[in-house]
């Protein structure tokens, strides 16, 4: 006969089970339990959430400062770094030195830094805002980072006006570019710009005995317009299988490709960014709530789909992740002939051992339907609305924006044209023996995508996830009915836009 458990014992046992589950759910002791560690994706610039693994999660918490003035007698201003550049190991020391130097140089403001790894920075900042403990300044931060915190950011225009702040030499249109906050609020000041263009591997062109692509917008390539069709044809000639046949050959083996013609490396992984060379447009209509798939995305994704699965000159997701393309570092592998990238990509070109070194150059962004678009990334610093020390924070922010040291630390191309030559020289030093045509870069600045490929849409983060899922599907699935997929994307976007704002 089985004895029935007594009430208290059963209760104790139940409590024990609940405690076990609670403890297990909260702990990370089990071998495969989730851990706080997330894949680190530190962008070389705030302009893109680039999937570059960093060796470890960086968190530098602010030094403790007693309530009241800082050690230099100035108002304490908290500076949050992590939404873009600034968290790589090589940044940390120079950033600390800059802050120390700034704090020593005046007595009005005392800056304290908080550095959070890029992969968790947005979540950390949200948590600080929710916890009532937000910083005063964020940055460097790109358009996307600004969008994620759009309604939390301070309109700088009144401060600019009241202090008479100006940035001599900087195109006033760039200041206008940052009027993307709620109600047209100016939520940043020009700091760094990163136009895009083509990076090409000269060795692969030489090997195929093909002329280099044009360096000026509007120039022809082999008597034909330098456009996406020309890129397609050229890309196929530069795509080679293991037997040495290029993709235009009848003997070409698409199952054994060892070299590819073209890709857009290191963007935010979304269809919006990938196709930005095809033009500009917003996924939300002027009413701010109706979803649409702009022509540039539709045309661009169809072009990519054909390039990947029919013409084979653009790598699939698996090919991108393979060792042939350096596990995602495609251009540095030496096996990608052309790559559309932004100025900040100069950070990541140098081939890493054992990849073979190669010579490379800059080429003009190709046109589509006769129109050239060179997608633009920017970096800035911004202030949170919640700051209680707006004047001091603005003073610190303007010092950051004007600092040549910070431009150097972040490898950022100055928004001020007068400072750009010095920056070009600094990059040239990284590539001895390579002649880079910086005129391409300066010319590309004149062809930005407006609206930008990271422009605001309702529920930005969720919408971006939908664009990323779309791009992943195109990169991984042959035989898609692209019209049906684009229609489904529009429906998905509408569902996201219809949700309460997040």
């Amino acid at each position, binding site marked *: 006969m089985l004895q029935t458990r007594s009430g208290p014992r059963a209760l104790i*046992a139940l409590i024990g*089970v609940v405690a076990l589950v*609670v403890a297990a759910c909260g702990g990370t002791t089990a*071998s495969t339990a989730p*851990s706080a*560690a997330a894949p680190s994706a530190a962008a070389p610039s705030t302009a893109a959430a680039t999937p570059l693994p960093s060796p470890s999660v960086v968190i530098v918490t602010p030094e403790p400062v007693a309530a009241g003035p800082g050690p230099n007698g100035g108002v304490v201003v908290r500076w949050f770094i992590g939404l873009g550049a600034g968290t790589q190991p090589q940044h940390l020391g120079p950033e600390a030195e800059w802050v120390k130097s700034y704090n020593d140089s005046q007595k009005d403001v005392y800056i304290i830094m908080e550095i959070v790894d890029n992969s968790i920075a947005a*979540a950390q900042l949200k948590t600080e805002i929710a916890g009532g403990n937000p910083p005063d300044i964020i940055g460097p931060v790109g358009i996307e980072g600004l969008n994620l*915190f759009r309604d939390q950011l301070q309109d700088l225009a009144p401060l600019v006006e009241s202090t008479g702040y100006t940035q001599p030499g900087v195109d006033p249109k760039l200041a206008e570019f940052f009027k993307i906050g709620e109600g047209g609020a100016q939520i940043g000041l020009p700091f760094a710009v990163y136009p895009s263009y083509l990076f090409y591997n000269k060795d692969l062109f030489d090997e195929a005995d093909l002329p280099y692509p044009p360096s000026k917008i509007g120039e022809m390539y082999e008597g034909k317009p330098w456009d996406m069709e020309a890129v397609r044809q050229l890309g196929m000639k530069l795509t080679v299988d293991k037997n040495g046949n290029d993709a235009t050959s009848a003997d070409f083996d698409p199952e054994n490709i060892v070299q590819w013609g073209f890709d857009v490396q290191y963007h935010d992984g979304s269809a919006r960014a990938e196709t930005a060379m095809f033009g500009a447009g917003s996924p939300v209509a002027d009413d701010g709530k109706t979803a649409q798939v702009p022509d540039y995305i539709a045309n661009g994704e169809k072009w990519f789909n054909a390039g990947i699965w029919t013409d084979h000159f653009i790598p699939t997701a698996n090919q991108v992740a393979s060792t042939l393309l350096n596990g995602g570092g495609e251009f540095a592998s030496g096996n990608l002939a052309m790559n559309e990238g932004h100025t900040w990509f100069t950070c990541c070109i140098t081939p890493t051992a054992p990849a073979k070194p190669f010579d490379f150059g800059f080429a003009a962004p190709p046109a589509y339907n006769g129109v050239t678009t060179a997608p633009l990334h920017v970096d800035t610093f911004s202030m949170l609305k919640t700051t209680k020390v707006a004047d001091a924070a603005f003073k610190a922010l303007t010092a950051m924006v004007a600092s040549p040291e910070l431009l150097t630390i972040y490898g950022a191309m100055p928004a001020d044209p007068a400072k750009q030559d010095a920056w070009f020289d600094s990059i040239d030093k990284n590539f001895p023996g390579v002649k880079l045509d910086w005129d391409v870069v300066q010319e590309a600045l004149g062809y930005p995508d407006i609206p930008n490929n990271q422009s605001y849409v309702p529920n930005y983060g*969720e919408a971006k996830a939908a664009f990323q899922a779309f791009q992943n599907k195109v990169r991984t699935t042959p035989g898609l009915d692209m019209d049906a997929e684009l229609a489904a994307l529009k429906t998905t976007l509408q569902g996201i836009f219809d949700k309460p704002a997040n």
Partner: protein
Amino acid sequence: MTDTTEVSAAPAAPIASSRRFTASIREALWGYVFIGPWLIGLAIFAAGPIIASLIISLTDFNLLRPEAVQFIGFDNYIKMASDPNVLNSLLVTVKFAIIAIPLTMVASLGLAVLVNSPKLFGRSIFRTLFYMPIQIPLVASTLVWIGFLNTETGWLNGILAVFGITGPDWINSTVWIYPALSLIGLWGIGNLMLINIAGLQSVPSELYEAARIDGAGPWKMFRRITIPLMSPILLYNLVISLIVTFQYFTQAYTMTNGRGDPDNATLFINLNLFREAFQFNRMGYGAAIAWLLFVIVLVLTLLLFAFARKRVYYAGGES
């Protein structure tokens, strides 16, 4: 099956039963004394956030607009019932659990039996080798596995190709992603293997000797002696595996940058929770999903314990 709660109906039994009952209570009390410090820590450091998350789940708390929080009752829970992402993430988690848990249980027990065999030369070396992957951070090992499973240059498909087999697209197929993740999970079974080894070594050798004399073969001994005597260990491993599987996150996040690719096939419930709470800022909704997860795991654990009452053998009596 022996159970300490089983008592004789004979008239002389009450005194012995009472003593055994008292000893059992005493033992249980000592157990709670030993886990007491931990329970106090749990109450102080975890109970607050747990209660807070329950309250938050009844609100529309948005991470970026904490000042605008509203009490919305059970709206988040009602919304979950029709949210395709929640339903899909539950399905994804269950699908994975159905593959991964049995595989993990069998593989860890099999490995334990192998490396516990007296006939195996260099047992300690093998135990160390099989345990070593545990020491590697999950993110790092997942990145290695991504390379290993790559269709173009990955070793696995390379090995399959030697045998004339065209390997699947492990990572980008909505079908093959689960075997792929299960394979990755097998790398981390060192802990379970060690626990199983301890269980195997606690089985009295005289039982095997007696069985051998009675003519039992290895398989029969394993089935009739090893498994029953190890059943508490197996139950523990099963419960832990279940909880861990329902918490599955890091590998899925690492493989897809948190996107749930391909086609939401890796949108595990924990990843969905993270996205809602921290990426889409809907902390109230995320907290509700967390409570759903908790309730599911609790119910499944209770079911397992109920099952254990009939199937698990406790040599020293059920505590």
